[in-house]
């Protein structure tokens, strides 16, 4: 990769995690900025303008959520939240507060890089108005409202198409139940996740070869859904 690569701001109070990431990212052509506290993070974000933020939710001086809110006051910079397993509520809250994606600790380098790449690409593509999307055998033309699987056109109901369109626009990123419900059904439907699950069930039966082992429409338990961009690659273990 050519220098200067994208700048990643890592906000994490644990020195060992910082050390592991410091040892990894530069060799993949990225510039690492470090912050151990929320205050430091906000200062760095304002002065060094990183391209993506990796944010641990448990910070010594302030709530990670507060950092997200303050960043979002003035910046659309992608934020990837780092959080432990079993804290799905925190992840969802962070995502709904404006974070773009999350990584569950412990995570591998592959996963970290994949998430960073998605975030960086979305940052580059935002506002580009790209309406065509393709992954594996699946291709979606948002403007023409055409969905093809191995070249064959698939007929979707209006709701199913709306759902798929939201996921396509956020491809590779997790989208929470709440975000999907609000975008597809409107702001009043946020609690009715079973609407969403039933529609997703229908969508999978139309788009997936084995609906119980989906390649594209991945469930993030307790959080939401993610449209996978690279269905051939192995996922997290």
């Amino acid at each position, binding site marked *: 990769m050519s220098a200067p690569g994208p700048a990643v701001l890592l906000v994490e109070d644990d020195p060992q995690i910082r050390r592991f990431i410091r040892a990894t990212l530069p060799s993949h052509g990225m510039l690492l900025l470090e912050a151990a506290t929320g205050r430091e993070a906000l200062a760095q974000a304002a002065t060094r303008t990183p391209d993506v933020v990796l944010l641990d939710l448990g910070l010594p001086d302030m709530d990670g959520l507060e950092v997200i809110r303050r960043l979002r006051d003035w910046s659309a910079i992608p934020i990837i939240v780092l959080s432990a397993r079993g804290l799905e509520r925190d992840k969802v809250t962070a995502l709904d507060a404006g974070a773009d994606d999350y990584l569950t600790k412990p995570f591998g380098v592959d996963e970290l890089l994949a998430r960073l790449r998605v975030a960086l690409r979305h940052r580059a593509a935002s506002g580009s108005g790209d309406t065509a999307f393709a992954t594996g055998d699946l291709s979606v033309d948002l403007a023409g409202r055409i969905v093809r699987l191995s070249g064959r056109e698939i007929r979707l109901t209006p709701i199913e198409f709306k759902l798929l369109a939201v996921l396509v626009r956020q491809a590779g990123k997790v989208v929470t139940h709440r975000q999907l419900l609000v975008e597809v059904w409107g702001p009043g439907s946020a609690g009715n996740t079973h*609407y969403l699950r039933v529609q997703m069930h229908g969508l999978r039966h139309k788009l997936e070869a084995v609906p119980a082992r989906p390649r594209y429409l991945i469930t993030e338990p307790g959080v939401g859904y993610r449209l996978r961009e690279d269905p051939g690659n192995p996922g997290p273990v």
Partner: protein
Amino acid sequence: MDDDRRPDPDALLAKLQEEERTGSRGRLHVFFGAAAGVGKTYAMLQAAHDRLRDGVDVVIGHVDTHGRPETSALVEGIPAVPPLQVSYRGRTVQEFDLDAALARHPCLILVDELAHTNVPGSRHERRFQDVDELLRAGIDVYTTLNVQHLESLNDLVAQVTGIVVRETVPDSVVEKADEVELIDLPPDELLARLREGKVYVPDQAERALSGFFRKSNLIALRELALRSTADRVDAQMQIYRRAEAGERTWPITEKILVCISPSPSAIRIVRAGRRLARRLRADWTALYLEQPRHFSLRAADRDYAAQALRAAEALGGETVTLAGHDAVGEILRYAREHNFSKIVVGKPGRFWRLRELVAGSFVARLAERSGDIDVFIVHGGREREAVRDSDAAEAAGPPIDWRRYGWGVATVAACTAIIALAQTHLAPTNLLMVYLVGVVFVASRWGRGPSILAAVLSVAVFDFLFVPPFYTMAIDDTEYVITLVAMLLLAILISTLTVRVQEAAELARQRERRASTLYSLSRELASARNLDPMIAAVRRHVRNLFEAETAIFLAGEEERLALRGEEDAPEFARDPKEIAVAQWVHQHSQAAGRGTSTLAGARALHLPLVGGRGPVGVLAIGLPPEMPAPTTDQMHLLETFANQAALALERALLAREAHRQRLAAEGEKLRNAILAAVSHDLRTPLAAIAGAASSLAASGDRLDDAARRELVLTIHEEAQRMSRLANNLLEMGRLQSRTVALRREWQPIEEVFGSALHGLETALRDRSVEVRVPSDLPLVAIDEVLIERVLFNLLENALRYSPPGTPLELVASPGGSELMIEVLDRGPGIAPGDEERIFEKFFRGEGARSRDGSGLGLAVARAIVEAHGGRLWAGNRAGGGAAFRFTLPVGGEPPAAIPSGSGTEPLAAAGAGA
């Protein structure tokens, strides 16, 4: 013998207990006098000043100086608890402020006039109850009392002075006093002081001199006061001698049975019996024999017996209520069975009774059959007038129900009509039979009075209409005289018998009902294991018997009461005032509220629930306002209820406590086992990681690529193993501590299959996984994060225990009200006998490859499935391999129809979004 001179151990014990009791309790010092004006209050105040000089914390609770200047002068200099201003019937009355006194908690408090009756609405009816509460709080009390207020002397005072004193103090209060100091003043001096206006202000003094303060009265009262003080000194001497010298001066214990009947004299007989008992130092029991005929008495009359029994209890006697016809027989049977040596009965003779003419008077028969038991006959008149005077309204009683008499007359008229029709066909004697039938009918329907009226009327009408000469009361044939007299006697006899049989049946029914209620309550309480069914049983039975709602308060943290069974508790149980009463009752283990003399203004009657180990809680019975206060009998029944309930509740509470402790002990054991296993399971991968990492750090450059790669892979794999262990441990901890409520959402099971398989994508790369999910499966309400964990752990377990490359199957199938999910492998299967053990924490099967896994995965999976109301079990498949199956209940309300529009539809209330 030497033996006889040794101190009686019981007496020593009693003395010790007495000393112990007075140790924690405050000391009561009574300034006792023959009449007002002898200087009790003055002496009390002087004594208080002495104590004050000794440095004791003395406070005046309440002192009435009656405007006497010497006394008022003494009040100065002693701090006082400000009196409570109570408005009562438009006037403001100054009352002793008990709560303020308790809060002030002095060493010694002065409370004048022990016999005082508090203004209605105070906590206690009477001041001596206030004093008792002060004593129980450990405060010493000085108080004053006149002899005419002593309960047991009340009748004597009335006889001597002709004045009935209503404000009496139970003798037990004075007997329990630590000091009784007699303040004596010769009558002449007292009279002189009266004339000088030192006792009452002049115009009152004149009236007092001509009324109560006659010299004869004062001499008699003085004698009573001196004698009762002497009695007390005598008793103290006896106790002292018994304890110190061990000399046996006690006679064989006498037992006295005081028999009362429902008459105004009952209370007087009780007092007389008590005086006798005291003089003889005997135990005594008041016995009320409930006879069927008592049911025909007015309620007010029956209440006399209840009042007398209450008085007996207040005077320190035991009380017994028996039922039966044969009064003499029952009383003597009871007396013999319980070794009573003396029987006290009232002097009869208010009414002329047929029965007594025939069988001899009750007293005569009792005396005749009593054998070696002495019978004392006590005079029982006079008080009737006294009671009449005071309670004229009450004595008037309920009006007679004239309708019953009307029916009696109507029946006679009907009989007459029948006879008039049948006259020509029947002999006159047979005509009389028609009347006889009528009389029996009246007796059975409307009781004795109407039936006697009917009998007399029948004879008169028959004589008038059907006996020649007709239409006169004269009788020609003397034979008819015999017929008519016989008819009259027969009618009265039959009606008496009929009525008595009915009364006996009624009495039996009532007793039967109570007995069966008690029996079924005790049976239900015995069979119930938990608190709630017990409480429900108590409440139902009280409702059946008294038509009253009940609430049960149980003691919780720091003896605070909490209402049990909130949702269907009666309304009064939420009233903070009632809760405060209940709290008081609990603290003092003493009944209060309606029908008692403490906090009688409460809406409910509050009974303490005292079990074998102490107070458990309070039973509050919300008697309807229109219902009269419970009789002694009902009170006893309720107390029996409360006792049974208390024992049962205590049992349940103890069982709960034992269960909690057992769980805690088991939890402790398990915690230790887990700690041991975890420390092993954590250290092993840690050792591998540390070893591999240190090897890389120290000599990484000297190792070849293959060796370096091997070490790095070791670190990676061991770290992942620790991560899994940490996940499962956390999950287990959260499930067991129940801090996590299930976040159930309706969803297709297929989706959870997908996320579990996705999570194991790398590990499953060299395996074929066959997934079978019918497309028409119903939605299930599950916590997807947790069920995904179940599938993840089961699949991981299958991967670990089956050879690489062998296929796996993941199957869902509907089964009635359940959904069944199977995870199948083609490994060696489960060793026989291990089907259950594999779910134990840290169990590890034989075929496990390496030391992989934590041994917690299956335990976590089972805990999650069970939290969802399903089952998880393991077995072997036909054709080889293990099968793990679990069920998830499908029941419940399926979600509302899915809207197809865009958010304009009304929304069904569903679970919160993830």
